């Protein structure tokens, strides 16, 4: 594996495009984007999302910057009786106009008694660049900070309680299995992949590990995160959220992301081990690979170029290379080598990772290498399709739910469907 830094300008969708989707994922939460017309316009231009969340915009006037406490009052009024939580998403323009979103969130919480958290959408990362999924990372970091913080002994007790009731109604399935774990496990991620966390909770339960909860939660309650908690990060873009958990004293598992067969197997094994249970996923992984044989046949030898902007590209490439595809290049608008050390190690020797790829350079390399399929960011998608390339958006995989063994199947099915459709269209006489 070679890592090159192109120092170019990658095509990355504005991280705020995900506001509607995240708000939909957090029912009962009012999301207030604090900034100017720019931020509001991004959110309205990408209206994807679902029911449940409410989004409002606190539009600042540069000629009349707000007084301290004004935003807090506005947030309290807007929350009314309908919202249980408020997320104040601060932007670069808000910071430039002197709005202290953290302070306003604390003030609003004190005034209203509601849970109010500040999300700094523009806080710098250690590595330069941006990912389209950065907001998800920051929102989850804010949610981790909202999680109750208890001592280890209480957390163990809470985990046992969870075991009795079961999460997602799946706990009962393995009730007869004696639990060996010593530390409660909290899953972190899967915010935009419905069902992913439930699949992993079920897989962990099969190995004898009961999850104490998931961030973001499927219900109202956030699980306790603190000293003694084992935090299992599901997504490769959650560096800030993982740090937030680490800062609370939680132990963040260093392992592969639960994407693809081997990734899921390593994830389950390592999480179980950190939780105090021992399990081997070798046989299960082997049987899943066998079950996926036909789908694997559809991607074997296919040449895939990753020009996405989500951060999911590295684990996706790792899985597809394992499945027999030829990965031509993996573009990474930002790469946190420390956080993704295991992923990069597992990527294999024949794969090139290009950090900060220049989108024009990517287009030229795609033209030159003529891959069978390109996983392309939103801005490159239409121009590449117009040049005759087969494209999938990285968000297609995220939305389909790419975690766990079932996620591995869904990833391969998405590719197989893409090839089938293209072949059918090519075969039709126009």
């Amino acid at each position: 594996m070679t890592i090159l830094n192109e120092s170019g300008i990658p095509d990355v969708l504005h991280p705020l495009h995900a506001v509607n989707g995240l708000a939909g994922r957090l029912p009962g939460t009012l999301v207030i984007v604090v900034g100017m017309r720019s931020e509001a316009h991004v959110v309205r231009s990408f209206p994807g999302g679902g029911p449940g969340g409410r989004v409002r915009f606190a539009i600042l006037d540069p000629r009349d910057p707000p007084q301290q406490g004004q935003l807090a009052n506005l947030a309290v009024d807007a929350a009314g009786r309908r919202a249980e939580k408020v997320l104040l998403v601060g932007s670069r323009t808000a910071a430039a106009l002197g709005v202290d979103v953290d302070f306003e969130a604390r003030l609003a919480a004190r005034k209203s008694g509601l849970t109010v958290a500040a999300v700094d959408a523009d806080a710098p990362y250690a590595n330069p660049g941006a990912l389209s999924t950065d907001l998800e990372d920051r929102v989850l970091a804010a949610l981790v900070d909202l999680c109750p913080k208890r001592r280890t002994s209480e957390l163990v007790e809470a985990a046992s309680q969870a075991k009795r009731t079961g999460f997602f109604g799946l706990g009962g399935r393995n009730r007869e299995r004696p639990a060996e774990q010593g530390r409660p496990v909290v899953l972190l991620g899967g915010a935009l992949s419905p069902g992913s966390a439930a699949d992993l909770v079920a897989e962990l339960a099969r190995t004898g590990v009961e999850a104490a909860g998931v961030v973001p939660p499927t219900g109202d309650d956030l699980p306790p995160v603190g000293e003694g908690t084992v935090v299992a990060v599901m997504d490769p873009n959650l560096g800030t959220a993982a740090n937030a958990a680490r800062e609370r004293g939680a132990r963040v598992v260093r392992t592969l992301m639960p994407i693809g067969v081997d990734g899921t197997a390593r994830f389950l094994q390592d999480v179980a081990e950190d939780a105090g249970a021992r399990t081997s996923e070798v046989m299960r992984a082997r049987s899943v690979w066998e079950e996926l044989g036909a789908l694997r046949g559809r991607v074997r030898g296919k040449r895939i170029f990753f020009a996405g902007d989500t951060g999911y590209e590295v684990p996706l490439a790792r899985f597809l290379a394992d499945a027999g595809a030829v990965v031509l290049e993996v573009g990474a608008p930002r790469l946190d080598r420390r956080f993704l050390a295991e992923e990069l190690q597992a990527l294999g020797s024949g794969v090139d990772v290009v950090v900060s790829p220049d989108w024009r350079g990517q287009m030229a390399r795609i033209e030159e290498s003529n891959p069978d399929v390109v996983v392309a960011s939103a801005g490159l998608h239409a121009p590449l399709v117009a040049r005759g390339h087969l494209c999938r958006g990285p968000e297609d995989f995220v939305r389909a739910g790419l975690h766990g063994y079932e996620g591995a199947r869904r990833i391969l099915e998405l590719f197989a469907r893409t090839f089938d459709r293209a072949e059918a269209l090519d075969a039709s006489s126009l």
Partner: protein
Amino acid sequence: MRLLKDVYEGPGSHGILRLAACIGGVHAVLRAAPGEAYLPALYGSRERDGLAAAVTLSPLQDGRREIYAPGDLSQDLAGVGRRHPGAEAVILARSEAALLSGETIPAPSPPQPGGRDPALVTCAWESPGMGETEAADLALEDLVRTHARKGLERSPYPTVNLFGPPVFGPGAAAEYDEAERLLNLVGVEVNARVPLGATVEGLRRLPRAWGNVLLYREVGESATLYLQDEHKVGRVTTPMIGAAGTGAALRAVAELCELDPKFVERTVWSELARTSKLPWYARLKPPETFAGLKAAVFGDFTYPLGLGYALSREVGLDVAACGTYLTHLERDFLFHAQTFTEGGFVEDDPERVANKIVAARPDLVVGTELERAVATDLDVPFLPLCYPTAGRPFVENPLMGYRGSSILADRLDEALG
């Protein structure tokens, strides 16, 4: 500070980028934070023509930056000419975050005769809080001012420049097509379409035209005023919406281009007989269909005024409310709106707009995508005919000209039964 549910317009930088995306040979440099360049994604999903928008991000980064990495504004601007040999003009757009950073910008550089470097238009007037429409209007003026050649002779036959809507406008390209078709019928050729489909060379030759036809005043106002003042090219500002508006615009063009008024009149009558169905629709329907029906119209500037006038005078609806979100055009809008309604208003808060519409108790709402919710709440038909709209049709229909009036008749027929 205001708490809004939504916004009608993007920032000024978005308007400049929309404008630049229309004109061949113009390359935009967006000075903004990494990740703020969402126009390529928006362009790809809305226009769906497979072209890549000519935008380069000059990232505004805090902290360490590698020497050759982009981020130095002067270098990034200079690099466009090198990397994009086809670029004849570079236009600088700054995001609100970049504007608030207070950094200085390079001086503009007009095109040098025989020089190979593209002209640089810096849009130094850009300020935080400015809306996309106003910025697009001023940016177009800057581009025209930079490129329009002085001392060009008028074309030997009557020609006009069409100043219409930029990309993302509903049916934008179809509006130009219909206007050009009608102008050709009366014997006038189109010298240039601006901004959609224009080229830098076309901008240079704008003063050749006998007149400017302002289809979309929001974006062509300043440029056409400049051409009128500096190059003595007159303009026609009547909105070409509805049969009456279209006829009035054609007659004004005929006067500007010194055409035979009888020939123009015959063409108008022929189009009214063959193409325009709005007058027919109004005559065929029994008067009870429209009696006492109230309409609320809301949008940018040209469309609410043109549609409001057509609905009121040609169809016979009572336009109880007609508004715009373009606050910088308040005085002009209210002046024109009063000719057909007493309910003219200017408002850019969608919730207040909804309240105005509810108060008008309309039987039909014509507006932007943001008015869909209020129409649903009122349980009345809704026609999303004004920018911003959500639809992305592959085949665009005009709302202007005689064909546009027929399409309006169809939409009204569907909505009102």
